[in-house]
């Protein structure tokens, strides 16, 4: 059968596959559906009244949405980079690792795009920013470049993973000459998307908190903590529920690599703190606001210290072999890393850059319920996408979903 026809059968079969499942599966999908509906209602309100329903104002003009976007770009980048150690150390389920990493990247990138969509004041004009259709202001605008590389990265991952899955679905082994170069290309692209996202902030000399050359390296270091943290948890879930043959050694190795990335991240933080504190110029204000508050405005202080504490604790948990190899402490470490990096890269990055404002104003940004709900909806969409895609992928990978079968077996017990 030709590729295109097989693809149609694949799509139809996938649709059937994701429609059936255990009650846990339905429960999970139902929960995500509730999140999505809540988000959609909140977004409808925002479209109706304008961005005034957020806590954003002129002094702090980006916040929760763009912070989430920034964090998630890192996750999308790091998910794919795990392919490198998989190759170096000859981990067994490399195919699965590539597929899962790319699926995660696709789902997370969809969330990134949604976060940009909800942040702009004129979503009706979004065609203006699309490559070819709009008037993308390259080479001068970094955001334009970001849109470009994110789109390429999205299509690349979507293409590779579709090719891999459809090939396996047809019962053929994917041609490594086709997908390996693409996978290899997606690695520098992963670094690129996150660096360019860093440059969007980095290239603003009027905002000293971001205008530090360490920003892009720090972005990458923290992404190589948070992306694998999510992958580690996913791998363990799949190992249990989908009988995916993932060696514990691989999981420990990833945790060890994360410890090094976290060390770099913390080291960069120390370097930045030293430079600002010792120089003691007015640039220090932003860091002071983040960690101690200014003029009695302390909205970020609790978050900032939580982030540092979580990151340091996770670093030690992953550095010490005994805690790294213990499943409980390993997972605690993953959660801590997620919390630490999430705060650092979203609210902890965006808001202090604006506070105090360029004219010295201290506006305390505190996201509204509406913003949270919109964000919740987007996370719901991402989780739903990943659930549905990985359900198909796992059935393809373990051979239960094949072209020869008329329909996927209904009794396959796949995880939610």
């Amino acid at each position, binding site marked *: 059968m030709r590729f295109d026809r097989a693809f149609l059968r694949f799509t139809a079969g996938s649709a059937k596959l994701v429609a059936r499942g255990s009650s846990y599966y339905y429960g999970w999908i139902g929960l995500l559906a509730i999140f999505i509906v809540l988000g959609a209602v909140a977004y409808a309100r925002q479209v109706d009244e304008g961005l005034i329903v957020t806590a954003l104002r002129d002094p702090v003009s980006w916040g929760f949405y763009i912070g989430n976007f920034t964090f998630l770009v890192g996750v999308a980048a790091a998910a794919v980079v795990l392919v490198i150690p998989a190759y170096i150390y000859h981990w067994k389920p490399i195919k699965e690792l590539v597929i899962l990493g790319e699926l995660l990247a696709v789902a997370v990138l969809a969330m990134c795009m949604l976060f940009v969509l909800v942040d*702009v004041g004129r979503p009706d*004009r979004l065609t203006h920013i699309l490559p070819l259709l709009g008037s993308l202001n390259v080479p001068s605008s970094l955001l334009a470049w970001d849109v470009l590389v994110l789109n390429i990265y999205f299509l690349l991952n979507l293409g590779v993973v579709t090719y891999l899955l459809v090939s396996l679905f047809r019962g053929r082994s994917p041609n490594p000459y086709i997908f390996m170069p693409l996978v290899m290309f997606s690695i520098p692209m992963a670094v690129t998307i996150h660096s360019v996202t860093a440059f969007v902030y980095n*290239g603003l000399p009027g905002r000293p908190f971001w205008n530090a050359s360490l920003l892009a390296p720090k972005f990458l270091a923290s992404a190589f903590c948070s992306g694998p943290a999510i992958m580690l948890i996913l791998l363990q879930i799949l190992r249990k529920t989908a009988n995916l043959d993932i060696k514990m050694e691989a999981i420990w190795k990833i945790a060890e690599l994360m410890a090094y990335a976290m060390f770099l991240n913390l080291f960069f933080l120390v370097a930045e703190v030293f430079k600002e504190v010792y120089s003691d110029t007015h640039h220090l204000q932003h860091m002071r606001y983040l960690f101690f508050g200014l003029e009695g405005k302390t909205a970020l202080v609790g978050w900032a210290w939580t982030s540092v504490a979580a990151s340091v604790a996770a670093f030690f948990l992953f550095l010490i072999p005994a805690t790294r190899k213990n499943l409980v402490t390993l997972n605690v470490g993953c959660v801590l890393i997620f919390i630490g990096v999430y705060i650092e890269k979203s609210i902890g990055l965006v808001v202090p850059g604006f506070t105090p404002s*360029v004219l010295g104003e201290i506006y305390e940004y505190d996201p509204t319920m509406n913003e949270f709900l919109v964000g919740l909806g987007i996370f719901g969409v991402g989780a739903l996408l990943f659930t549905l895609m990985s359900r198909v992928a796992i059935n393809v990978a373990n051979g239960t979903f094949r072209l020869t079968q008329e329909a996927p077996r209904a009794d396959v017990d796949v995880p939610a």
Partner: protein
Amino acid sequence: MSDFTPLPRSPSPDRRGFLKKVVASAAIATSAGCRQALEEFMKKSLREMSRAEVKDVLQKHEAEYKAKFGREVEVFATPAREGVLFGYGLDLSRCNGNRKCVTACVKENNQSRGSDDAPHNNPIQWIRVLEMEKDKGISFEHANPYYNPKEVPEEGKFYLPVQCQQCENPPCVKVCPVGATWAERDGIVVIDYDWCIGCRCCMSACPYGARSFNWAEPNLPSDQVNPNTHVLGNRPRPRGVVEKCTFCIQRTRAGRYPACLEACPTGARKFGNLLDPNSEIRRLLEEKRVFVLKEELNTRPKFFYFYG
């Protein structure tokens, strides 16, 4: 520097143009109902339009405002004049912080008056006057934009008005992902309110806090509309786009002074053509020692401060 008005259209249809045509014909075939969506989709930024197309846009806006405000509002697209580069001077020793410039600017430029029933919907002001402490000098860290004493000037304070500095090297223009903001030949940095997507990159980039965003539907009562408008300046703005001072483009391109200058009772404000050796602003640059804000950022403002 590019200008929107006299710009010749590129003769060969580019790829984007082609793509749009393809999609357009497909869409026309489907239904007439998507006319509006299609129009939005086919739109170009003002900068890319021919004169005739610009004229259409002006008429469309005039009709739109007539329907909205129930009165005639004229929208001009007066181009930059040859040999003109605008510059502004501000005498800090004269400014006493009375903020008449702010009020005049709001009226002249149709800024949103904010909303009484929604106090969080702040009014938009293109000029911010900062109160500073004399013994600390110019320090934004110690600035207060919300000063409210019975009488100005207050003991020990001085005042520093900040508005768009019309930089020669504008960081806001560089970052715009869709090219919706640019510097015209006469040095005025403008925004195409029909092209801006409201991403607010330019607000992050501006070191002077000169740009405001329409977080809500602008509140502009009909009886307060200034009906003499420029398409890139003070015409009523839609929600969700960015705006800022344009040196009163609707006035200055017609040979008048900016509204803030005329309203200033202390004579602290000076304005003129930097390319004309006999202009007031040139004389000022000659005779006074001037400085610009945040000079270390190399934005090269055309807004000069001095002590008279």
